[in-house]
C-alpha cells in the first residue's frame, strides 16, 4: 500500500472507529452539513464525470513486488478491495501491455480476416458498428494473476494478489458472424489474432472457441473501449486467459494448425514436473477470493462483519462458495448474490461475528462442472512451482490477529 493510500485508509478507519465509539456512548447531535446550506457545482456538460475527490485513493497500481525496469511490457492492477458488486469501472480495469498503449484513430483502423477463407475481407470501424451487436458480462483475468504469491506472502493487498482481474460488460459482434461472412475453409481449425500495437501481440486460438462465444468487441461497460483496453476494437475470448483476447485487433487469420508463437511457447506456458511445460492452458479455472476483509485492512474491534468476495470460473457458472474462519478446518456455505452468470464474477457474502481472537479466513469456490478450487498444496502436487508461474487459482488465506490487522498468509495456512 502506498503512503497516500495508507494515510487515506487510516483516516477512514479512524473516522469509523470514532463513530463506533460514539455510537456506543450515545449519538451526538447532528449538525446541518455545509453541503445543505449552499448550492453545489453546476453541470459541466463538457467534462467526463469522475469519482469524488474523496475516492482518489481508489486507483490502479503496478506491482509492489516486482520492480519493472521499463514500463512498456507492464501491468497495473484493479483495486478489488474497493469494488462493490461484480462490475469494474473502466478507469479501474487492469492493464497488461507488451509494448505500451497505442492511440489508434478509429477512422483509419482496419480489421482483416484472411488465410484459409473463401474471401479475405477488411472491415472499417463503421462497418463493424453496423452488425447486430451482443453484450455479455464476463470476468477478465490475466494468466499471471497471483504469480508473486504462490508459496509465501509477497503482496500486501488483494489488489496486489488478485488485481489482474476485472468484471466487464463487453459489447461487440460475434466473431462467428464475421468468420461466416469470409467463409471458413473446412480445413481451418485454428485462428490467429494479432494486435496493431508495437508488440503485434499474437495468439493461436482453436476454431471451436472462436465460433462458440468469441466477440469482436468495441464496447465495455457502456462506452467505447478505453485505449489501454484495446480501443477501437479487440477480441474477447470469454473465460480464457486474458492475453488471448488480443487488443487493438487488426488481423484474424485462419490456419489448419497453431502457429506456436513466442507468446504460446516461451511465454504463457506453465512449468511442469521433469522440466516440462504445459502449453495452450487457456481456461481460467474456478477461483475465488475474499475482498473484505482482505490484506492490509484493519478490523474495527469485535462484532459483526460481512465477509464478501468474488468467485469466477472459465469453465461455467459458480455453483457454491464456502468460507472458512479457522484456516480451512471447517467451512460454511456463503450466499451467492444474483445474477450468477456464465464465466462471470459472482459476489458471495457471509455474516461473521468476530470474537476478537485470531482467525484465518479463506474462500473456496465450486463451479457448475463440480470442480472444487484447490489449495496451493493441491496444485503443488501436480505442477512445478518454479519461477514466474501462471495460473495460480489457489485458495487465498487472510489472517486476522487480535488487533484486527488482516494479513496475506498464502503458503502458511
Amino acid at each position, binding site marked *: 500500500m502506498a503512503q497516500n493510500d495508507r494515510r487515506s485508509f487510516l483516516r477512514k478507519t479512524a473516522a469509523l472507529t470514532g463513530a463506533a465509539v460514539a455510537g456506543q456512548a450515545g449519538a451526538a447531535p447532528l449538525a446541518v452539513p455545509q453541503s445543505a446550506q449552499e448550492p453545489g457545482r453546476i453541470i459541466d456538460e463538457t467534462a467526463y464525470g469522475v469519482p469524488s475527490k474523496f475516492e482518489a485513493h481508489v486507483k490502479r497500481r503496478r506491482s509492489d513486488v516486482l520492480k519493472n525496469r521499463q514500463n*512498456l511490457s507492464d501491468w497495473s492492477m484493479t483495486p478489488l478491495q474497493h469494488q462493490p458488486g461484480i462490475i469494474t469501472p473502466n478507469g479501474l480495469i487492469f492493464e497488461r501491455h507488451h509494448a505500451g498503449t497505442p492511440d489508434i484513430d478509429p477512422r483509419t483502423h482496419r480489421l482483416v480476416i484472411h488465410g484459409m477463407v473463401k474471401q479475405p475481407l477488411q472491415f472499417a470501424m463503421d462497418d463493424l458498428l453496423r452488425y447486430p451487436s451482443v453484450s455479455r458480462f464476463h470476468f477478465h483475468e490475466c494468466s499471471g494473476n497471483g504469480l508473486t504469491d504462490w508459496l509465501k506472502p509477497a503482496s500486501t493487498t488483494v489488489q496486489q494478489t488478485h488485481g489482474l482481474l476485472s468484471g466487464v460488460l463487453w459489447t461487440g459482434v460475434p466473431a462467428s458472424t464475421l468468420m461466416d461472412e469470409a467463409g471458413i475453409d473446412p480445413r481451418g481449425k485454428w485462428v490467429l489474432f494479432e494486435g496493431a500495437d508495437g508488440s503485434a501481440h499474437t495468439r493461436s486460438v482453436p476454431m471451436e472457441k472462436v465460433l462458440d462465444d468469441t466477440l469482436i468487441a468495441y464496447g465495455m461497460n457502456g462506452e467505447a473501449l478505453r485505449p489501454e483496453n484495446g480501443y477501437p476494437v479487440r477480441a474477447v475470448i470469454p473465460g480464457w486467459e486474458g492475453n488471448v483476447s488480443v487488443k487493438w485487433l487488426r488481423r484474424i487469420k485462419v490456419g489448419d494448425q497453431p502457429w506456436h508463437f513466442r507468446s504460446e511457447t516461451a511465454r504463457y506456458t506453465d512449468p511442469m514436473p521433469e522440466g516440462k511445460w504445459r502449453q495452450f492452458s487457456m481456461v481460467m479455472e474456478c477461483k475465488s477470493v475474499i475482498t473484505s476483509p482482505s490484506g492490509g485492512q484493519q478490523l474495527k474491534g469485535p462484532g459483526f462483519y460481512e465477509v464478501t468476495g468474488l468467485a469466477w470460473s472459465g469453465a461455467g457458472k459458480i455453483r457454491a462458495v464456502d468460507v472458512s474462519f479457522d484456516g480451512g478446518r471447517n467451512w460454511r456455505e456463503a450466499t451467492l448474490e444474483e445474477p450468477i452468470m456464465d464465466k462471470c464474477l459472482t459476489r458471495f457474502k457471509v455474516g461473521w461475528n468476530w470474537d476478537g481472537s485470531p482467525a484465518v479466513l479463506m474462500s473456496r469456490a465450486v463451479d457448475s462442472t463440480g470442480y472444487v478450487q484447490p489449495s496451493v498444496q493441491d496444485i503443488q502436487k501436480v505442477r512445478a512451482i518454479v519461477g514466474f508461474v501462471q495460473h495460480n487459482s489457489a485458495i487465498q488465506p487472510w489472517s486476522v490477529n487480535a488487533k484486527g490487522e488482516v494479513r496475506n498468509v498464502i503458503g502458511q495456512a
Partner: protein
Amino acid sequence: MSSARLKGIVGAGVASLLVFGCANLGGGGGMAAKSSSGIPLGSSGPHAVQPLPDRPRFGKAISEADLAAWNIDIRTPDGQGLPAGRGSVAEGKRIYEAQCIACHGADAKGGAVYGTMVGGIGSFKGSPRVLTPGSMYPYAPILFDYIRRSMPMDRPQTLTASDVYALSAYLLNLNGLVPADAVMDQNSLPRVQMPNRDGFLIDDRPDTKAVRCMTNCK
C-alpha cells in the same frame, strides 16, 4: 509438444459433451469439452447467433497481396511464411550492437532492461529455470517471427527480413546452436534443431482433485 503429435490430435479429435452433475460434495469435475485439437474449451455457452433473413455483409473484399505488409506471421514448426532474404552471424552481431545492446547487454548476456538471452539449456529440471531463446524455443523460426513483429522495442516492424535472419543467426550462435559461419534463410532456419523441441505438453487440466470437505478437514 511436437507438431507431429499435435497434428495427430487434430486428426483424432472429437469434441466431447460437457459433463455436468458431479456430486455436490465430490471432487474432480472440470473442463470436459475439448477442441478438435485437444485443447480444453471450458463451458460451451448458449451463444448461437440468430441467422438473419437478410444477413448483413459489410466486409469489403481485399486481396492477400494488398494485406502482405500485415501478413507477418510465421508458422514456426515448419517455417511457413518465412520470406526471402538471408543473414549471417557476423551481420547479426553488427545489427545487435547497433540496435539491441542498450536493453539486452553485450553478447546478449543481459543488460539495463532485460536478462540474459544466452544459456539455460539443461536448466529446466532444477531451479531457477533459465528461459532464453536457446533453452526455451521449441522451433527456431520463433526467433524470426518475434524479432520481426516486436523488436527493437523502440522501432518494431522496421527491420528488413535479412536483418531479422542475421539477428536470429547471431542469437542461435551465442546459444551454441549454429556455427559461427552460419547463414540463416527460409530454408536453413527451420532446420535448426532446438533442445526444447519436445519440452511441451498439451493442456490436460483439470489436474487438481480438491474435495469439498466441510467439517474437520485438516
